[in-house]
Every structure is written in structure tokens, then in C-alpha cells.
């Protein structure tokens, strides 16, 4: 969801079967940060996927990030961009975070400001969390449970904090709470109680086992009410993390310096190694790639990888290639097949599309196996908990298209000579345009004529593909889309895509309008079980949705990331699908 919103980041993103390897404990102070459980990675292609490359405890130096765009906001309560969620951990401590370690270990949710994973009441409607009592802001004052509650309250005022997710409004009681700027009552948001300075009690409208995942968003970081500057908070959020804002020129440059009040014992998943961190914004992508390759900067913070020219240069040189990683990052590209628009409302017509599509040409359009991604046959990509490999439409066994089965399905859907439909896509996204054009060509060979209808990305979900009435009235049976989970389990990935109760009149992400009672029941079950039983449900939902042929998978996306030799403690954090920004250092 959040990654769909990364306009500039869309061209890339990756997903990936990340090799399970030893995890870095990342404990303790940066100067003594132990890598006891870390397998230091040799400098080699893809070494950063499964191990720490250039492990170091060296302090000092300036770590420079460049970004070809801008953040949605550095206000922790007002962001949804993947790279900002990753980067925010340098200056705020949310309730939970993902464990700092390479490999699949990096998908593990662990307490950050919280002391443990919380306790839930028998009916699943009340969660109790405790926070550390000795975490301090940059001014030396102690962060309290009331500050965590206030930080969450701020996200309810969409006139100030519009960018972030809306899970609290959907999950907690008191959904109409207007936010602390309009509501001046002493109780504030009644859905959260703070009986003392270290305890938070959340009241839910329905059981939701993934609440700790929601609290991994930086919006759960504490905000002292006295220091809240509303819309201007993005210019200087009060730090609880290892670094704090020195200065920030909006959308140009951010400088972070070490937070003297930060205690590494309270924040084992972050480090305080560089003496300064600079983020340059709005730098052209070719410039970023060149600076990376020449070691002038250390990180392309968007995490979307090298552009075509830089990629070609790196992959062609064994020396440079050894400094690159090509992870799959959990983002999937696919085509929604609408279940309400004729003739796509016929299962066999949708299955004909699934069989006939040439997955190789689409993969090539996305950038090929390294930069585009691996061909998908499921909705969930491999790094989502609950993923199970299957191939109902021969996407892997006959990647160039299975015309025999496509013809059979066309017969069954009563359109033996094919049919006509339209497909929505974002015309201002060149790779998506190339992919749907490739699909159009391959479907034409089966007699399925697709008329492409391009729309601007900015209003794609609000006014066009995400507006069912528009899709129906314009007979648009297919729509290009992409998805990255807000947290790495099946609920985070599948709920918005195929759960019947998520269909909405605008901003709709269930564009196929899948409303299968079997799937809906599985989602209902998922709120009542935990652990392996719950995880098993995700593959069942994935399989059922694929049997319903509501989504045509294209690729699980991959990106080519580059790590200059002067960048230390570098590895891909599995959940983010990019390097872990919270622990990096610089050698010179």
C-alpha cells in the first residue's frame, strides 16, 4: 500500500527470496556493537542480501544519502513512503520495529520503544503495552506513554497529517475523533488509555492480531505536545533516536547530528556511527548513480536501485558488480481482472487472459530478470510470511503464454474467437506503459483485443481505476497495479487487494472487486487464530484468489542496489527491501 504511493519509486522496487542467514544482534553501543551473530559478508554480488558487508564499529565521518525526489514528510505521523519509514528510525523510536539483521531475520517484528510484544485480552479487543521508562528526547526530557498517545492522536487530523495510513481510525474505537487540534477535551482519544507514564491500553472495535505491526509505523513514536508545531513539525521532529535534526531546508537538504541523549541500550536496533548524516533531495537519478559509483555519496535513499545507465555500467564490471545487490523486495506488479465488467465477469474469460499472457515480454518491459523482477505466479511475493509457490496458469512452466489452454478457456467463456475489453494504466509511468503494451500484444495473439486507456498516476486510484463506477461505466475490464505490504504477512499484503469489505467507491485497491465469501471467511478466521495456523490462511487466500483469476501476476520486483566501498554495516533489510538505514557507518 505505502509503496504504491511512492511515485518516483515505482519504476523499481524488488522483492525477494532472501536467504536465511545469521542475524546481527545489533546490541549495545555503537562503539561496542557486537556482531556476535553476524556473518560478515565478503564483498561480492548479492553478499548484502544475506550478510553484513563491511562490518565496522568505526565512529565518525559523514554519511551522505541522495534522493531523486522528496519525502512525503519527515513528520513521523505524516508519512507512508517506504524509504522514509526505513530512514525515520534514525531519529525516532516507534513502539515496534523490524529487527536489524540481514536475511529473513529482518522481517521479525521486535519491540523498540515498547518493552515487549504486548498482551491482548481474551476477547481480543484490548491490548496493553508498556514502554521503556528511560528513553529521552533530544532535550533530555523523558518520553511517556501520554506522548505516544498524543503522537497517534495527531494522525487523526487529516488536514495536518494527510499522508500516513489510517489504520487507527479503522481499528480503534472512537473513529470519529477529530484530532488534538480540534478536540480540546482532557480525555482526548478515548480509544487509548494511559493509566501511567509507561502503559498504554488500546481499545479495538474488532480483534486484530497485527496491531503491533501497525505500531511499527513511525506514527507510534512519542511526540511531546508542548513541542508539536503541527504542519511545521516536519521541519524538526523531536528526536528519540540516535540522530536529531540539525537543519532541514524543505525538500532540499537535511542534516542530522548525533542525539546526545540517545542511549544505545534502549535502542538496540539502531547505531550512532557517523558524526553527521546529510540527505540531499531532488538530485537527478543519473547524478546519484554516478556519485554512488564514485563513492561521493554512500546511499540512494529511495532504495529503488540504479537507473538503466548506471545499472549497465555496474553489471558490466566485475569489480563494480561485487558492490551490488539484487534483492526481491516484496513489491509485486500485476494486472487486476475485474469481476463485474463483461466479459471479464466470466471466470473463463479471465482465465483465458491468465493463460494467454506472455510473462517474459512483460518481465522484459519491467527491466528484465535483474532490474525488473522474477516472473510471478502468485499474488503474494516470496518474502511475505505465508507465501506458498503454485502455478495454476503455467506462468512459470510456459512463460511465453499457454495458447492451448487459453483457447480452451475462450471456448468455455463463450468467446471462441476472443473478445474485446479495455485496460487502465498509468500513462505517465514509462515501464508500466511498456508492460501493458507488451501484454496487449500477447493477448492479441489469442484474439483478445485490449484497448489501452492511460490515466495520470496522481488520480489513478481516486478517479479512474480505483473508482468502480468509472470502471463499470467505461467497460474497463483490466487495470495495471502494484502492491507492497505494510507489514510482511498475508494480511498486510492481501487484505486490501481481495477482501470483499475493502471495496470502496474511490481510492479502491480491490480493483478486481473480488468479493468471494470463501476468501472473506478466511480473513474473518485470521482474526481469531495466531501463529502457524494464521500464517497458513494466507496461502489459502492467495490460491483461492488465483483460482478466481482476479489478478494476473507479472513480476515480483527486483532492484539493483549499489553499496560504495566506504559504506559500512550494509545489508538489505528484508522487510524494507532496501539497505537498513538505521545501522550504517562510513569508513572515511
Amino acid at each position, binding site marked *: 500500500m505505502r509503496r504504491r504511493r511512492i511515485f518516483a519509486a515505482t519504476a523499481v522496487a524488488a522483492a525477494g527470496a532472501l536467504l536465511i542467514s545469521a542475524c546481527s544482534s545489533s546490541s549495545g553501543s555503537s562503539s561496542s556493537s557486537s556482531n556476535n551473530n553476524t556473518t560478515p559478508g565478503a564483498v561480492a554480488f548479492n553478499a548484502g542480501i544475506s550478510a553484513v558487508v563491511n562490518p565496522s564499529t568505526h565512529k565518525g565521518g559523514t554519511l551522505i544519502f541522495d534522493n531523486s525526489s522528496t519525502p512525503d514528510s519527515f513528520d513521523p505521523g505524516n508519512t507512508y513512503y517506504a524509504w522514509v519509514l526505513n530512514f525515520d528510525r534514525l531519529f525516532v523510536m516507534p513502539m515496534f520495529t523490524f529487527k536489524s539483521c540481514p536475511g529473513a531475520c529482518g522481517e521479525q517484528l521486535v519491540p523498540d520503544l515498547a518493552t515487549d510484544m504486548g498482551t491482548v485480552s481474551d476477547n481480543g479487543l484490548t491490548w496493553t503495552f508498556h514502554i521503556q521508562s528511560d528513553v529521552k528526547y533530544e532535550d533530555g526530557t523523558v518520553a511517556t506513554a501520554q506522548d505516544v498517545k498524543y503522537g497517534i492522536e495527531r494522525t487523526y487530523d487529516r488536514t495536518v497529517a494527510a499522508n500516513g495510513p489510517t489504520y487507527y481510525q479503522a481499528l480503534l474505537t472512537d473513529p470519529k475523533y477529530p484530532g488534538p487540534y480540534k478536540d480540546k477535551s482532557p480525555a482526548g482519544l478515548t480509544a487509548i488509555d494511559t493509566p501511567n507514564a509507561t502503559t498504554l491500553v488500546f481499545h479495538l472495535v474488532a480483534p486484530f492480531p497485527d496491531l503491533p505491526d501497525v505500531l511499527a509505523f513511525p506514527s507510534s513514536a512519542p511526540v511531546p505536545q508542548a513541542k508539536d508545531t503541527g504542519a511545521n513539525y516536519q521541519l524538526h521532529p523531536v528526536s528519540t533516536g540516535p540522530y536529531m535534526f540539525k537543519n532541514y531546508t524543505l525538500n*532540499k537538504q537535511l542534516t542530522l547530528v548525533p542525539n546526545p541523549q540517545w542511549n544505545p541500550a534502549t535502542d538496540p536496533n539502531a547505531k550512532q556511527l557517523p558524526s553527521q548524516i546529510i540527505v*540531499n533531495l531532488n538530485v537527478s537519478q543519473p547524478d546519484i548513480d554516478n556519485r554512488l559509483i564514485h563513492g561521493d555519496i554512500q546511499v540512494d535513499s529511495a532504495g529503488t536501485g540504479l537507473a538503466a545507465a548506471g545499472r549497465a555500467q555496474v553489471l558490466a564490471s566485475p569489480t563494480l558488480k561485487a558492490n551490488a545487490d539484487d534483492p526481491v523486495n516484496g513489491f509485486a506488479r500485476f494486472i487486476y481482472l475485474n469481476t463485474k465488467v463483461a466479459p471479464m465477469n466470466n471466470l473463463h474469460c479471465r482465465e483465458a487472459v491468465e493463460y494467454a499472457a506472455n510473462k517474459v515480454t512483460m518481465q522484459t518491459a519491467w527491466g528484465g530478470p535483474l532490474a525488473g523482477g522474477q516472473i510471478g505466479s502468485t499474488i503474494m511475493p516470496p518474502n511475505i510470511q505465508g507465501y506458498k509457490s503454485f502455478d495454476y496458469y503455467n506462468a512459470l512452466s510456459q512463460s511465453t503464454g499457454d495458447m492451448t489452454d487459453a483457447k480452451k478457456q475462450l471456448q468455455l467463456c463463450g468467446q471462441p474467437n476472443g473478445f474485446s475489453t479495455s485496460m487502465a494504466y498509468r500513462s505517465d509511468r514509462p515501464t508500466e506503459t511498456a508492460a501493458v503494451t507488451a501484454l496487449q500484444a500477447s493477448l492479441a495473439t489469442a484474439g483478445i483485443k485490449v484497448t489501452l486507456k492511460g490515466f495520470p498516476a*496522481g488520480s489513478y486510484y481516486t478517479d479512474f481505476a480505483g473508482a468502480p463506477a468509472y470502471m463499470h461505466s467505461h467497460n474497463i475490464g483490466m487495470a495495471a497495479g502494484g502492491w507492497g505490504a505494510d507489514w510482511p504477512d498475508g494480511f498486510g499484503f492481501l487484505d486490501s487487494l481481495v477482501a470483499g469489505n475493502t471495496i470502496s467507491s474511490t481510492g479502491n485497491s480491490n480493483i478486481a472487486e473480488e468479493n468471494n465469501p470463501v476468501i472473506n471467511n478466511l480473513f474473518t478466521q485470521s482474526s481469531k487464530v495466531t501463529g502457524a495456523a494464521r500464517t497458513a490462511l494466507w496461502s489459502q487466500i492467495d490460491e483461492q484468489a488465483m483460482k478466481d483469476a482476479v489478478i494476473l501476476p507479472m513480476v515480483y520486483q527486483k532492484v539493483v542496489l549499489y553499496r560504495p566501498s566506504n559504506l559500512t554495516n550494509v545489508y538489505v533489510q528484508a522487510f524494507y527491501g532496501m539497505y537498513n538505514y538505521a545501522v550504517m557507518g562510513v569508513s572515511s
Partner: protein
Amino acid sequence: MIYFIIRRLILTVFLLLLVSAITFAIFFLVPRLAGQTAYQLAAQYVGKTPTPSEILAVEHKLGLNDPLYLQYGRFVKGIIFGVHYNNGPDVSYCPFPCFGYSFRNQQPVWPQLISDAPVTLSLAIGGAILWLIGGVSIGVLSALRRGSFFDRLSMGIALAGVSLPVFFTGLISLELFSYKWAIFPNVHYVGITSNPVQWARNLVLPWVTLAFLYAALYARLTRAGMLETMGEDYIRTARAKGLPERKVIIKHGLRAALTPIVTIFGLDLGLLLGGAILTETTFSFPGLGQFTILAIQNQDLPEIMGVVMIAAFFIVVANMIVDILYAVVDPRVRF
């Protein structure tokens, strides 16, 4: 002369008002005429999965539910008197000349423009000096040595300069002088007040890139003008009077040939001051050009309005200065 200047100033204000009205109509009125509602516009600035009441709240906060003439009046009033805007916990004041409040960044537009302007000014003025001196000098020398190797070489290079886009020459210059030979490594903008030497060092490549494009044009224009002027009877007369050749060339030939150059220089500089989009993007300089691109990408209407007004201001003022210079040179223009 004073009346002439006052007349021009009044006309400038009128022109800027007209530009603001037309720009406002393009971005606010035309979408309405095409069927877009204030609600739909507000929905673009509420983030993911907003409820109707949240969209209405944003619509109200941004004033999009007001009649368009009121919204335009508020914009103009903000430029003249400043604007109060709701920050969340309190109300802040954006003083004159406040160009509105960004829908996307939730920050007043004017401070952002002011913060970006020095970058564009540095780029445009430095580049302009280079291309004016370089272009005119090459043009004069080419005209005086018509048909020579120098003439053919310089005009060939000029043709390349006119033909090659900035994003090509800029990237080539970066590749060669920044990455391959590292004469100007790690080019990035440094403020003149923080380090004048670094400011100049980092601007050399953008200046040269910009100057390469414009100097080529100016060289060709100057050459053509000089060739025409140097064939005039009064040049022959000047020579016949025994004036030194240097004086003939500079005082009589070049002066007359420069008239169209001054006109086009005013336009070019004015245009560039509004944002050297390609050069700033190529070199990642955070100036008005980059601001423009970002405003358009974000569909941030107040920011687009602001940058259009700034660009219009520079162009109109540059033209006014050219007109005044003309009036100095040729008194007939005043009437």
C-alpha cells in the same frame, strides 16, 4: 523619461495582474469547467483512503469550496497584505508578498521561492555574463574574419551549441570533468555566503553548459549583425574619415549590431531567472526550475501559481529594462 518609466511600471503591474488571472484560470477555472469539483480537487491532498468528512475538512481548510472569484481575491490579497494560515496547533502569519499556502507541503510558498531564487540567480547571471562576452566576441571575430578557419570552426561549434540540448552537454561535461578527470568533483550547489570559492567552483560546469547553448546563438546573431553593419555606407565613411579600425568596429559596427542582441538578452535572462529547468535538473541544483518541476509533479497549484508569477515578474521586468534602455538610445520610443 520619468513619465515613461512610471508608465512602464504601471503597465508592468497590470501585466502581472493579468498573468496571475490567466494562470489562476488555467489551474482553477478550467478544471472546474471540465467537470472537476472542489471535492475531487481536495481529495488529491488528503492521502490514502480518506473519509468524505476528511475530504470536506481539507476542502474547507484550503478554501476550495469558496467561489473562484473569492479564491482569486484571496490570492491577490495575500500577495499584497499577507495571509494567516492554520498550522494545526496555532495560526501563523505569512507576510507580504505571500503567494499562498502549499496544498502538499503545508508551507507558505513565498519562503520556498526566496530560498530557491539565489540558486537560479547564481546560475543565470554567471551563465549570462559568460555567454554574452563569449558569444559576442566570437561573433565579432568571425564576422571580421569571414570565411577563415576560425570563422568556420567557431560557427561549426556554434551550430553544435544551438543544436545540443542542455541535458546532453551537461551530462557530458559532468562525465568528463567531474567523474572521469575529476577537475570539478562532486558538483553540488554551495551558497555564496557559506563559501564563495566553493560556490564558484561548483558553478563552473553549469555556467559553461548554459553559456555553450546561449553563446552559440549570440555568436551567430552577432556575426550576422556585424556582417550587415560593416557593409553599411557609414562604416565606409568612418573609415574614409581616417578613424582607427578598432574605433570603427567597436563604436560604429558593434554598437549598431548589438541592438537586437540587447533585446534578446533581456528576454533570455528574464526567462532563465524564472527557472533554468534543464540545467538545474541536470546538475541537481535546487533552484526555481527544480521547484517548478516538483510543483507540477505534486500538482501543487499554489506552488505552480507562485513560480509562474515569479517567472512572469522576471520576464516583464527584464523587458521593461530593455525598453528603458531603448528609450535612452532612441528617444522616439518614449512617445
